[in-house]
């Protein structure tokens, strides 16, 4: 009831958003109401999660396919995602209260923002294929319009174009996937699909299409191309949602199909998903390291995290098919946990990127620097977010990666040789991705927030409205809390995975509350709670020791810098120079990264230039390749527009004769 009311409220808010016009306080009211609706949905989701596993009440509305009506239902999985989604949307809405006045054209954002929220939530509770897709496209459509909010920039327009194309591609894949699940009779409701029995070939296609469809929305490599384009284009609170939350909705679709609707996914698909996930994670983070645009960097980092989650999901599939239900539950819990975490810290980071852009007007790392001093709140919250996304203990990001590693380490126990050899390779990829993520965020945070300002705009960064700062602070606190009490979270998640894996699973069964011991107490365990306590104690002891044995005097002075005292901020390491060693190590073959030095002749006064050329292989060869093919065919086909009447008649005549021949041939049989 609460949920239904909140969703209707969101639709109404969209209308209010249109009516808001030029009055800024009206926009603020809309955002405030959005935040309330999100909170209501969040509470609704949490309330359901607290109940025993099982499906919630269904709502049937007389819309949608005429002979079927629209079905909505909240079960544990939807409830979990409702929590994930609305954590993000609540934060973004509160942030929006302060942020909307900084937008170039708020009238192009406010009406679509509630629609976007509505679409995402509706996907989660849809209980038939038609409503699922309608909501799904609703979500895409609203976010497309939001990407177009700053439409006067041609880059944003092409980003929106790519985004909508990819969204359409994904929708068509899901559409066909549901078509297969529903069968020729058109049993489009989810309960009917669950009962269906699939041929092996159909089952294969269903998984393939689900991966393509949901994967293109979630950003699996090579379907990730839209993320780094669309996320920077959208207003920051929207990109936070697109990156932190909408990709989760996509993964919800994947989980819904692979674990719920499709009864039995072969382990080979699990293996394939793991490999895709591994490649996505590594490619995503490598892309991220090369970016100078703050929001692009974050978008690519989303790609990486999606890869990490997908590794977990693939592992869960493989375990499930091999009968290892408990391990399947572990891997799934790990994946879900990581989604929850990523939703929080990626939202946080995008909001902070928005704060940086608002405060300085710059999003190029090369123009930022020293912001921690000008924006202490934002800086501190971002530091927490950066540490969390780098999977550093005791924050939440580490817990989920730890769980994924734990389940991954059990992977070679599967009876298939592919898995025995493949899992370690995926493990190496995951480890590489995790380490590179830390590098990426050291770079991003260090360049943007630390050091000295690299431009006048960065030096003059101004304060931000309280709503923006508080949102970030709250999210940072959540990062810490979710890392410190992991067992509470996994207990909640085990209720979600129970219907999907068919086994009740408690990751803390063996040692009790604060200890996370997935298999047994002797098989590796972790306790964020204990670690935080001990770490804090040791931190305090170190301070006491140091201050007890030594002096507390501090003197401020110029930087020593090996004696090269200077006052030129340009001499600092930039994003590009920071990335140089990694570029040389990882990207010289993958991205054909080349550096050319243009050194002037002796005596020539002109400056030397270092040019870095990086080719994105996926974009260049896959996407542009497709574009070239389409262009070439379009050129050829286009000649048909300029023929003579006689030739058109000829076409008609040929068609007629051809059809007559067909009929003649078929009649002879």
């Amino acid at each position, binding site marked *: 009831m609460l949920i239904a009311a909140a969703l209707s409220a969101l639709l109404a808010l969209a209308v209010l958003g249109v009516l808001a016009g030029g009055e800024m306080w009206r926009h603020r009211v809309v955002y405030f109401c959005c935040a309330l609706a999100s909170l209501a949905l969040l509470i609704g989701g949490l309330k359901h999660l607290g109940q025993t596993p099982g499906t919630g009440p269904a709502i049937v509305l007389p819309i949608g396919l005429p002979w079927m009506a629209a079905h909505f239902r909240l079960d544990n999985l939807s409830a979990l995602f409702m929590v994930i989604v609305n954590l993000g949307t609540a934060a973004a809405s509160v942030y929006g209260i302060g942020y909307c006045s900084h937008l170039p054209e708020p009238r192009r954002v406010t009406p679509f923002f509630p629609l976007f929220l509505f679409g995402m939530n509706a996907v989660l509770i849809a209980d038939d294929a038609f409503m699922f*897709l*309608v909501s799904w496209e609703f979500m895409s459509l609203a976010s497309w319009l939001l990407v177009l909010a700053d439409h006067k920039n041609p880059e944003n327009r092409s980003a929106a174009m790519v985004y909508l194309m990819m969204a359409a*591609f994904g929708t068509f894949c899901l559409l066909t996937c549901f078509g297969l699940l*529903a069968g020729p009779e058109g049993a489009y409701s989810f309960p009917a699909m669950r009962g269906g029995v699939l041929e092996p070939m159909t089952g294969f296609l269903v998984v393939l299409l689900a991966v393509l469809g949901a994967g293109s929305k979630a950003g699996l490599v090579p379907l990730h191309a839209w993320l780094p384009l669309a996320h920077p284009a959208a207003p920051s609170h929207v990109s936070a949602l697109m990156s932190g939350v909408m990709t989760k909705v996509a993964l919800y679709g994947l989980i819904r199909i692979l674990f719920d609707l499709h009864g039995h996914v072969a382990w080979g698909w699990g293996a394939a998903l793991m490999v895709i996930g591994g490649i996505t994670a590594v490619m995503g983070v490598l892309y991220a390291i090369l970016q100078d645009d703050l929001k692009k960097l974050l978008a690519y980092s989303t790609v990486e995290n999606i890869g990490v989650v997908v590794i977990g999901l693939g592992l869960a599939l493989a375990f499930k098919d091999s009968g290892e239900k408990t391990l399947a539950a572990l891997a799934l819990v790990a994946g879900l946990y990581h989604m929850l975490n990523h939703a929080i810290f990626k939202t946080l980071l995008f909001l902070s990127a928005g704060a940086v852009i608002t405060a300085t007007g710059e999003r190029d790392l090369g123009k930022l620097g020293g912001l921690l001093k000008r924006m202490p709140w934002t800086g501190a919250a971002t530091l927490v977010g950066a540490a969390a996304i780098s999977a550093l203990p005791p924050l939440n990001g580490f817990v989920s990666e730890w769980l994924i590693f734990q389940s991954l380490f059990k992977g070679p126990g599967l009876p298939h040789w592919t898995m025995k050899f493949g899992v370690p390779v995926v493990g190496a990829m995951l480890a590489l991705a995790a380490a590179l993520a830390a590098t990426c965020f050291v770079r991003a945070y260090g360049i943007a927030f630390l050091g000295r300002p690299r431009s006048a705009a960065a030096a003059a960064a101004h304060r931000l409205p309280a709503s923006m700062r508080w949102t970030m602070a709250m999210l940072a606190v959540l990062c810490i809390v979710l890392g410190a009490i992991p067992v509470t979270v996994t207990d909640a998640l085990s209720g979600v995975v129970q219907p999907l894996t068919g086994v009740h699973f408690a990751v803390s069964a063996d040692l009790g509350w604060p200890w996370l011991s997935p298999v047994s107490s002797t098989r590796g365990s972790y306790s964020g709670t204990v670690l935080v306590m001990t770490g804090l104690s040791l931190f305090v002891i170190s301070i006491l020791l140091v201050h007890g044995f030594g002096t507390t005097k501090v003197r401020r002075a110029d930087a020593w810098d090996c004696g090269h005292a200077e006052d030129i901020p340009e001499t600092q390491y930039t994003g590009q120079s920071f990335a140089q060693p990694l570029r040389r190590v990882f990207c010289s073959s993958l991205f054909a990264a080349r550096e050319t030095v243009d050194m002037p002749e002796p005596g020539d006064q002109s400056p030397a230039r270092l040019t870095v050329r990086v080719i994105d292989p996926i974009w260049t060869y896959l996407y542009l390749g497709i574009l070239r093919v389409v262009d070439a065919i379009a050129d050829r086909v286009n000649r048909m527009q300029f023929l003579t009447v006689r030739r058109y008649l000829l076409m008609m005549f040929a068609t007629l004769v051809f059809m007559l021949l067909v*009929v003649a041939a078929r009649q002879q049989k």
Partner: protein
Amino acid sequence: MIAQILALPGFDNPLLWILGVPLGSAGFLAVLKEWRVATWVNVGASGITFASSLLLLERRPEPTRLLFIDDFNIYLVVLTSFIGLTTAVFSAAYIARETEANRLSDLHLRFYHSMYQAFLFTMLLALTANNTGVMWVSVEAATLTTVLMVSLYRTREAIEAAWKYFILCSVGIGLALFGTILVYLAAQPVMGDGADAMAWTLMIKRAHSFQPDLLNLAFVFVLVGYGTKVGLAPLHSWLPDAHAEGPTPISAVLSGLLLNVALYALLRFKMLISANGQALTPGPLLVMMGLSSLFLSAFMLYRRGDIKRLFAYSSIEHMGVITFAFGMGGPLANFAGLMHMTMHSLTKSAIFFAVGIISQNAGTKRIADIRGLTSSHPVLGWGFVLAVLAIAGLPPMGVFMSEFLVVSSTFARQPLLAIPLVLGLLLAFGALVSRLQMMAFGEPPKVAHAHGNASTVSSILALTPLWVHMLLVLVAGLYLPKELVTWFQSVARYLG
């Protein structure tokens, strides 16, 4: 025999009004000199026609040898007269602005209005005719009236487009007649000589004993013949130019109505075939034509620089999808095809309304010269965005529902056929959206064109039909009235 056919309906029969009002007003408008009055007479006549078509919902007249109403044509009649009305309203605004720009003389306008009503008459007659011959005559007459309207502007391009339209459709219609004769020959041994062997209502009942081979042959001619009129590739060539060069209201009715009527004719013959049971299934031919239309237009869309041709090709694309759906057959795909016909009519005519205003505002039909519509004309721009998104198949608009049903049901049965369908839809989607973004977003051009300052009355008049159509499409995407669903389902059954 003649009396049998020409038994006219009585005054209490809505069909008399539906057909009589357009025919009468066509004559009246031909002699009416004042064009301002003529636009309103045009609207009024279309309004009466629409109102009387609504009466059909209350009471269906008994079928005669000449006219009949069943589940299939009832909604098409209502749809046709509705779009006839909205287009007349739009046309009033459009003509007012065209005359401001001195593009049309009084004589031309008289001719235009008269032909508009004549066109509506032929459309409605083709839909309600219970005789294959009468239907054929009406479609032929519809061609002639529209040829004249396409050439209205007397530019070289317009004349060439009309010439092409005329030649290709005449040949097509000739082939359709041959098919009609063949059907008569197939029916004649069973039904006996005369009009009975041409009446839909009678033929369908005894179609199972018709000569199947003759029906096969007939269907090929009917398919190529009426298919030309539907605009199926590679018979489509007349369509883009005819849409592009005529006055925009005519483009709207060509796309929204004429194509539907031609398709209706084609489907009536398909009903006979499926009622026959022994004839070869026309599915593969329809699927082939559907896919070729879809692909051809999808690629063509990428090279269009003219806004009206762009949407004309999009019409070919959708006709392809619809034909594909009927080719697939089965209750779901047929339902989807019928729904798609309806949704496409509403949406495409709405798009042409928008296009008409846009090109009048911008003073050009070149896509490259149209920019930032949502900034410069928000109500028009967003309506246009909504309409193009709807035609591109995005929910919650009605086209999505039909595409959902076509694609998903096809994929469940013939994945190999669904893959090209999906690819084609995706290609077309990309072209439409990229053009849409070019036109609707970005910095609007600085120079205000001379025609950009139309009076508020005429701009409200021009925009109302657009938004009314979009509202209907939006509602239909989420909710279809029960009667309509029942009709669709019963027709879908007949279509096999």
